[in-house]
């Protein structure tokens, strides 16, 4: 974590530009520019800036945005109330789409629809996210007027969950579609492994039907690799929603990161990356836990898979 913080700190300072520039405009005189630099601390030597930053981190103080003056942690908290539910819903949607389709694509791989699912998911991986978003907006918002084209549920999540869901339907669908495209492929190959396995053959030899054998023995076995993929996908969506947030003008964590970088607002950028690193670690830990629950073999003292 410390190394990550140091690397991040240095990389940010390598970008040309100055955070003070976000505070001045054309017409500012040299004294005003110097005052702005003093205010954000960019007039100090890099090492002094780094020491100051470490001191703040140690007391879990992420500082305040250079540009808006708002404490970074407070702003991240506000952004997470959008990003976390958005990611969680999209993630659930993706699982609901990908699991049945992926298994179907594997089991019925000789049928035309099995192949069709594979082809479509392959396409889905190749299509850029923003394009899917724009297509959905054009179809469901501009033409059919079923959902709003952009924006954030201003009443908040809890006062009117249905309105919020309606407002965010298209971004959720966009992320879910993109996620499920790659998930389908993993589920399919995991299922294929299971189908070809000895234990399934044994189960069937013992008299279980194909479907029964697959459900009783297959899902548990196939789930282990899929869960670790799910963990990675979930982690990358937390920040990977940047593009979707932009297309739908959503005030999430990703858009905070993006505008922070544009304005060289170091506290915001560092704060977002610090918190998201924490989240990614948490997700990875959770994925590990779930794997152990699903597969008793991983619970051994060594934790090694056979």
């Amino acid at each position, binding site marked *: 974590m410390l190394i990550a913080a140091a690397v991040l700190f240095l990389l940010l300072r390598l970008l040309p530009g100055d955070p003070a520039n976000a505070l001045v405009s054309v*017409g500012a005189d040299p004294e005003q520019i110097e005052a702005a630099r003093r205010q954000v601390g960019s007039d100090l030597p890099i090492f002094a800036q780094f020491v100051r930053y470490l001191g703040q981190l140690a007391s879990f103080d992420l500082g305040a945005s250079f540009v808006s003056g708002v404490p970074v942690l407070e702003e991240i908290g506000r952004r997470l109330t959008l990003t976390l539910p958005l990611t969680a819903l999209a993630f659930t949607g993706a699982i609901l789409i990908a699991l049945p389709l992926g298994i179907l694509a594997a089991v019925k791989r000789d049928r035309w629809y099995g192949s069709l699912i594979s082809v479509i998911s392959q396409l889905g991986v190749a299509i850029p996210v923003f394009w899917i978003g724009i297509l959905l907006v054009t179809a469901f918002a501009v033409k059919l007027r079923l959902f709003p084209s952009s924006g954030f549920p*201003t009443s908040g999540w809890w006062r009117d969950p249905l309105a919020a869901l309606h407002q965010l339907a298209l971004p959720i669908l966009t992320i879910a579609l993109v996620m499920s495209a790659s998930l389908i492929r993993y589920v399919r190959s995991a299922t294929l492994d299971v189908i070809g396995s000895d234990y399934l053959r044994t189960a069937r030899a013992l008299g279980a039907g194909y479907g029964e054998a697959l459900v009783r023995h297959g899902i548990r076995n196939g789930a282990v690799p899929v869960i670790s993929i799910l963990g990675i996908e979930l982690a990358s969506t937390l920040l990977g929603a940047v593009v979707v947030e932009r297309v739908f003008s959503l005030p999430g964590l990703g858009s905070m990161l993006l505008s922070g970088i544009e304005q060289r607002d170091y506290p915001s950028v560092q704060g977002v990356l610090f918190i998201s690193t924490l989240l990614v670690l948490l997700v990875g830990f959770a994925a590990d836990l779930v794997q152990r629950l699903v597969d008793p073999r991983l619970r051994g003292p060594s934790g090694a898979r056979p």
Partner: protein
Amino acid sequence: MTASPVRSALKPLSVLKATTTATLLLMGLAPAFAAESGPDATINVGSLYEPQNLDNTAGAGQGINEAFNGNVYEALFRLNDDGTVSPSLVKDFKVSEDGLTYTFTLQPGVTFHSGDPLTSADVKWSIERVTSSDSKSSRKNSLKPIASIETPDEATVIIKLSSRSISLPYNLSYVWVINDKAKDLQSTEDGTGPYALEGWQRGSQLAVKRFDKYWGPKPENGEVVFKYFTEATALNNALLTGAVDVITSVQSPDSLAQFKDNPDFTVAEGKSTTKLLLAYNDRVAPFDNVKVRKALARAVDDKKLLEAVWGEYGTLIGSFVPPTDPWYVDLTKTDAYDPESAKALLAEAGYPDGFTFTIDTPNYDPHPIAAQFLQGELAKVGVKVEINVITANEWYTKIYKAHDFQATLQEHVNHRDIVFYGNPDFYWGYNNPKVVDLIKASEEAKTVDEQTEKLKEANIQIAEDAASNWLYLYPQIVVSKKSVTGYPLNGLNSQFFAYGIKKAE
């Protein structure tokens, strides 16, 4: 004002202490039910310019002028949409014979949104905020002639100047009058305008609500919500789907067709003050040579560029002064497009085979397109252009501050900004003593006519010197639903007065 209901509801860390306040605020401030149309209608305004914070002396960006000037904050004077200046919080004023003492009488019965009455002390405090050492206001310099501010009684403000300043009323139109007891102006406000801040969700929207104790005429609507977008396409879709009623300033010309051909929308074109220019570093060779600058001005077909970017919209300009400034002169004939004479001038200047230079190009529209166009045009007269793409932030460090460049593309948005050519230390380094003197003398003029004459002369001179290469003036296009009327068309200095906007059934 304290925290808005919307914001406190979203702030998990301070929920406990905020609950009581939030409940009170919810009862008092939240609109009972936003009306769809009529005198209490909510007007949804779509914009690409979200303010960074709420303080125009702390680097808030142009978005704060759009949302707050004339709506939430008022000044002693108001810059009207037609470019004229009229008294606002000033009831009347006297100027002494020598032009060095201004005595202002304030409007009676003016109340801040917090309930405090407006006094001369608030005015003094507000002006000193802008001229203070840590102010980041780009207008700080124009208020330098102010020597002292006196407040003999609650309704009178006396400003003493060290030298005449004919633009004082105009310059004061930028100085928000704020309650001198106000705190945390980056996220709250306490102004005298027709609307009070209701809530701001960063990255999403800012709402202002009609202030019932407003001293002036009652606004034509009950609430204005500025909705912010980062993508022009998303903004257009929001108008198409009815999520916003009006777009303050359309920046994507190709999207206009869908509104123009649709009877549900109005497309209105006003005059902007945003100029696109190729600014040379006039300090360095070859741009220290007037002949070279004139040659490059003649080598570029501005009309072709304007049409390529904006189609039928926008205006050609021959200098830095837009038609809404009083000292506008049509100078498009000075160094008009003429590639043959451009080649001849280059040869005269000692560059018969041309030369190579780099244009530092901001990475956002329309600069990259303009740079490529210039590359093509200048190649025809033998001048080779290298394009170096930089970010807006880098531009300030490399060009504005360090003057480390040969030429750069930039859009300049302000009204009455010809004065930059009177400052030899400005980034483009144009230094003609005659222009410096004219601009200085214009500010010390005794009458507006004298000021206008002097600035006209300066204007003609900078065009004659081809100080920069002025490419075109942006159009100012406002698109709205047909049922929505009464919005300002020109949006000078990004202002967007919302009090006149009506929404019919």
